[in-house]
């Protein structure tokens, strides 16, 4: 066993059945798609993408921020904003408290700004570990403030969606966050602002039907589930089985809903290109050539 842990390998391979039993939780992960087992440390180095089949593991907002920005270039906004309980919904506050501990976030979205390939950007990153990334008042407010910051400072907006939709426990207030965030994006857009949407697994319901679908560029991670209505509800309604790839990023690409499906390893490169093209400011410069 000692050997097993100290052995240096470029990528993890499958430990023996015996070793697997002995390995503590959190040190290795079994790929849900190809079943290959990898060290978490190695996975992290590979941006939490399975080395063998390319499966993109869902990741938390803080890990995403760490891999997205140029090293050490980012700051967080509105770190301390928390939800109240406007409907006095039973048990809601307890659930929020336990998700806070689980995710080390105060709510289902991280917002901030930083450099991406040298370009200043305002960014929101949703975290599906917190109430399934659902959008209530705080998520709506933090995203709106981030957009307003970008609007004021003339920098692009990026939003990484990962959400099951609107948060049930805040009822109609959650629903209205769809309008609030969309309106903020519209105002930003009217001022010429650039918004890049990156849909990650899962982007569904009220988040899919608001800011996630409104990018000047809509990208998605491979295999991400993206859609409005739930698969089971659709199957019940139409009484037929849906294709295996229904509501995947690839399915959406085929139906004209996305610009590109971009793997995690290529994302910074693609974003850098888009940001640099926009930094040139359209047709400006041609007249001087």
């Amino acid at each position: 066993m000692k050997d097993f842990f100290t052995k240096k390998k470029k990528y993890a391979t499958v430990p023996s059945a015996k070793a697997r039993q002995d390995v503590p939780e959190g040190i290795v992960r079994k790929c849900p798609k190809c079943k290959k087992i990898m060290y978490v440390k190695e996975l992290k180095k590979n941006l939490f993408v399975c080395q063998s089949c390319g499966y993109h593991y869902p990741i938390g907002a803080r890990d995403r921020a760490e891999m997205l920005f140029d090293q050490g270039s980012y700051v967080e906004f509105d770190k301390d904003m928390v939800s109240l309980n406007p409907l006095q919904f039973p048990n809601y506050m307890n659930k929020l408290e336990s998700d806070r501990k689980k995710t080390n976030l105060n709510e289902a979205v991280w917002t901030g700004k930083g450099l991406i390939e040298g370009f200043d950007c305002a960014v929101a990153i949703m975290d599906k570990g917190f109430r399934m990334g659902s959008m209530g008042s705080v998520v709506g407010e933090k995203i709106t403030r981030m957009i307003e910051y970008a609007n004021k400072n003339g920098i692009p907006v990026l939003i990484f969606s990962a959400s099951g939709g609107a948060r049930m426990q805040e009822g109609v207030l959650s629903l209205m966050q769809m309008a609030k965030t969309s309106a903020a994006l519209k105002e930003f857009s009217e001022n010429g602002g650039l918004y890049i949407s990156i849909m990650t697994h899962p982007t569904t319901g009220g988040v899919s039907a608001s800011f996630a679908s409104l990018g000047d560029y809509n990208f998605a991670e491979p295999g991400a589930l993206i859609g409005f209505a739930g698969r089971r509800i659709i199957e019940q309604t139409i009484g037929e089985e849906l294709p295996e790839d229904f509501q995947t990023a690839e399915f959406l690409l085929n139906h004209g809903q996305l610009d590109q499906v971009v793997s995690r390893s290529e994302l910074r490169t693609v974003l850098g290109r888009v940001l640099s093209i926009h930094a040139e400011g359209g047709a400006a410069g041609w007249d001087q050539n």
Partner: protein
Amino acid sequence: MGPELDFEKPILELKGKISELKQFMDEKGIDLSDELNSLQERLAALEKETYGSMTPWERVRVARKLNRPTTLDYIPLLFTDFVECHGDRLYGDDPAIVGGIAKFHGHPVTVIGEQRGRDTKENIKRNFGSPHPEGYRKALRLMKQADKFHRPIITFIDTKGAFPGKAAEERGQSEAIARNLYEMSWLSVPVICVVIGEGASGGALAIGVGNQILMLENSWYSVISPEGAAALLWKDAGKAEEAAKTMKITGSDLKKLGIIDKLIPEVLGGAHHDPKKQADLIDHALIESLTELSQLSADQVREQRLAKYRAIGNYDTVQENLTNHSIFSYSSDRQ
């Protein structure tokens, strides 16, 4: 769904007794008007008591009555010169959303509404009032046209939600809803939205970003249907009655939460008892709202709408010690 609901049964029984008594008087030629009067007084009191203290769930059930007036019932009662406009110019025409131009007390307006069927056959044709992307895109086309010609927009919300189907997803249900929220927020003409029946989720909001939101007394508006909420939150769709209360979905709840601007009273027992009288009550509210909004310039109309949605939310700030340590503990739940 029968016309009378269980909580209305005592009223129905008393009405039966009254007509029996009338028949008896006619047949026998006996004058029992004292008894008749007292029964009629009892009926009036019972109706007032029953309909005056309806629970949220009872209101939901009234909102769903098949004979409750729909968008197409109200249009001829409220407007003149209605010209229906079909199609999104991209894919097709969605019968679950109707729209067009008309005159309201002589002034041009654009009218858009979700449209369920008034019987089973029409319900099937209209997908039970659940729109596809082409419905939302038709609505947006008509709203942009209204913006161009500077006429106010009146929308009627009445849907169980956007249609959950394969074709709807393929054609971009999410994008169609999102686009409407985005574009409606920026319109420079007054937008008044009236929830006349059911208002479920993004499917309702997609024609609901207005300067003023009005609701009929027996309508409901929420992030999800009571059944959906019960199934999701308590894994028991049977708890819909409880969910209707907990989720705060009625007009008076939403007025208290500051989400809607006006609660439109209903005729006793619900709009279906007297659609014409109900239309008058809506008419009154619309005139009032349009008069208020006509005081604003085009820029102010947009600013008022933007400010209205910007202010919605309930949150606080705390000081907590969060670190930047890596969290990678989610179960991978698919693929």
